[in-house]
């Protein structure tokens, strides 16, 4: 995307246009209200109320809803999670959202509401000439569109990429989709029939013309959704293909690296330390590709800690387990914490004599806390020789210098825990807290 001229106040980074999507995760009818609510950052209830209220203004809300349903793309195609998770999703291995009885609640309420509106109209206007056929027709078309959504969604989840004419209409089947098609088509036909029958009483001559027109119209309504979606789908499929190729490249690359590592492990099978280190580094590599949604880059505190753990694991025969809660950008204020944590982990790796170090970091609005713990040899903190600078300079003094605090708790034989605490002042004003 090229952006020619932007106002100077615009934030850096690629400009992503905000688009509205329909929310297909739990649609009542077409997911229009849910999607709009998310786009406009309003409670979904307000949007629904708006549509219902607008529907009373001569059906304006219904028209609007139908129009948005047709023209807003569904959001599912753009949801991309990590490749490993996507693959597990496609294979049906991940827990999905269970449909609960209560999920049908809004739909039932909507139906009841529609029925009420119909009755209201009837009592106001009496038996309209066109009214019932139109109501039935609209309901039928809505059902057909709903099924079209369902089918489209299944096609995204489908990996084979073949288009099967039966599947294009019914998706992967199930009584719900059959019922939707049959009921929808039935309602349209009944609507048309009703219209033709009443018409027929008066205009026998125009009958045939109308019937023909209606036939075409009905066919168009049934086929229309898919024809229209096809255009949308082409773009989606192209994007999907690019993604698939990218993924295949990546998979090939990882495949090589995994095989290499396994070969190395076979060669070094007598040396358990090397085997563990190889396995660990390979696990990290794979894990990052499979599960991490954000790149573990060193621009945030959590990312920096993970990168640090990886580096220490490569240099020393220890396993560094990093658990982080919350995150914030790595800046002048938080960098000392990460550096002190690295020093603490390296110390543990060198001196504790145990294969495992736990790192826990918690970032809140007010402070960053990092705990580095091992269950190793331990030492007497007061007894550090004056010429040893690791703990004193790199951990304690560094934290104090930058306005934080550090505590080393250790006893011989009882392991060591280094606690780092750095208060954060208000985030938007990145100030340096250099004490004299």
């Amino acid at each position: 995307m090229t952006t020619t001229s932007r106002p100077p106040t615009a934030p850096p980074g690629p400009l992503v246009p905000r688009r509205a999507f329909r929310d297909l995760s739990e649609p009542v009818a077409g997911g229009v209200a849910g999607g709009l609510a998310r786009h406009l950052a309003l409670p979904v209830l307000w949007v629904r109320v708006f549509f219902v209220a607008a529907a009373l203004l001569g059906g304006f809300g219904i028209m609007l809803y139908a129009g948005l349903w047709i023209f807003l793309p569904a959001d599912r195609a753009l949801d991309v999670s990590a490749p490993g998770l996507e693959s597990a999703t496609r294979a049906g291995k991940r827990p999905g959202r269970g449909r609960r009885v209560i999920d049908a609640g809004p739909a039932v309420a909507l139906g009841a509401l529609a029925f009420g509106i119909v009755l209201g109209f009837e009592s106001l206007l009496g038996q309209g000439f066109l009214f019932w056929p139109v109501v039935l027709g609209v309901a039928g078309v809505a059902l057909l569109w709903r099924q079209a959504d369902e089918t489209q969604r299944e096609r995204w989840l489908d990996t084979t990429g073949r288009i099967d004419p039966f599947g294009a209409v019914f998706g992967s089947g199930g009584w719900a989709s059959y019922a939707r098609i049959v009921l929808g088509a039935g309602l349209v036909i009944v609507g048309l029939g009703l219209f033709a029958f009443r018409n027929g009483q008066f205009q026998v001559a125009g009958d045939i013309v109308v019937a023909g027109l209606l036939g075409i119209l009905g066919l168009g309504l049934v086929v229309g959704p898919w024809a229209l979606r096809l255009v949308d789908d082409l773009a989606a499929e192209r994007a999907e293909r690019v993604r698939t190729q990218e993924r295949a490249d990546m998979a090939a690359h990882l495949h090589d690296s995994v095989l290499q590592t396994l070969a190395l492990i076979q060669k070094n099978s007598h040396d358990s330390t090397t085997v563990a280190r190889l396995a660990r580094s390979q696990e990290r590599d794979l894990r990052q590709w499979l599960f991490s949604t954000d790149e573990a880059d060193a621009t945030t505190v959590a990312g920096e800690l993970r990168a640090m753990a990886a580096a220490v694991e490569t240099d020393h025969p220890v396993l560094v387990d990093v658990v982080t809660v919350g995150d914030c950008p790595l800046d002048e204020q938080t960098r000392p914490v990460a550096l002190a944590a690295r020093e603490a982990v390296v110390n543990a790796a060198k001196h504790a004599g145990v294969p495992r170090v736990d790192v826990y970091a918690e970032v809140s609005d007010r402070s960053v806390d990092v705990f580095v713990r091992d269950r190793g040899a331990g030492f007497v903190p007061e007894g550090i020789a004056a010429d040893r600078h690791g703990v004193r300079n790199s951990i304690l003094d560094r934290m104090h210098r930058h306005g934080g605090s550090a505590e080393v708790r250790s006893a011989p034989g009882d392991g060591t825990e280094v606690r780092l605490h750095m208060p954060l002042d208000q985030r938007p004003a990145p100030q340096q807290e250099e004490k004299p």
Partner: protein
Amino acid sequence: MNATIRPGGPVRLVLVDDHAMFRAGVRSELTAAGAGVVDIVGEAPDVDSAVAVIREQRPDVVLLDVHLPGGGGVEVMRRQPSPDTCYLALSVSDAAEDVIGTIRGGARGYVTKTITGPELVDAVGRVADGDAVFSPRLAGFVLDAFAGSIDVAAVDEDLDRLTEREREVMRLIARGYAYKEVAKELFISVKTVETHMSSTLRKLQLSSRHELTRWANDRRLL
């Protein structure tokens, strides 16, 4: 830690994982480290066969993989093949939604696949005794979920009801403390630690049901 022979006989356990090699590995580790403590009475590679095996064997504990053909581990628990069975999730997935989702689905604990044999035996024993088992990583996820920084599809205010003490316990677990060490640090008994963890788990599992009621209530459907 050494496994002690359980008074009521060994824990009857069913192993559910779609990778045969992993099942074999766990089986050998459990047999080695948990002799007399854990008795593996069945294995299953997917949801349907897991449900069948659990229904037939009625085990005390099911060691359940999160990613499973046929709908994931949650689906097995949802079908409730046996009422008295406890579930311990054993996963390699680091995705918070998987882990928290499985816990919400009714699992009593979550451990990672890199866990050692004795630790796994200990975890199985704890789950069989009705306790919750939190690995450091799960404790981290729980804190994240309760802080609202993970978007687990449905995190709501109900999650805020974790008490300061429960939060404290979770923090220590996330820092790699063992139960005993948590108890020592907070000057409480191990039993109290277990109580705090169980109630954390209960709140986590309950919240989805609360949320459901609230959702319906908000829309004046109830």
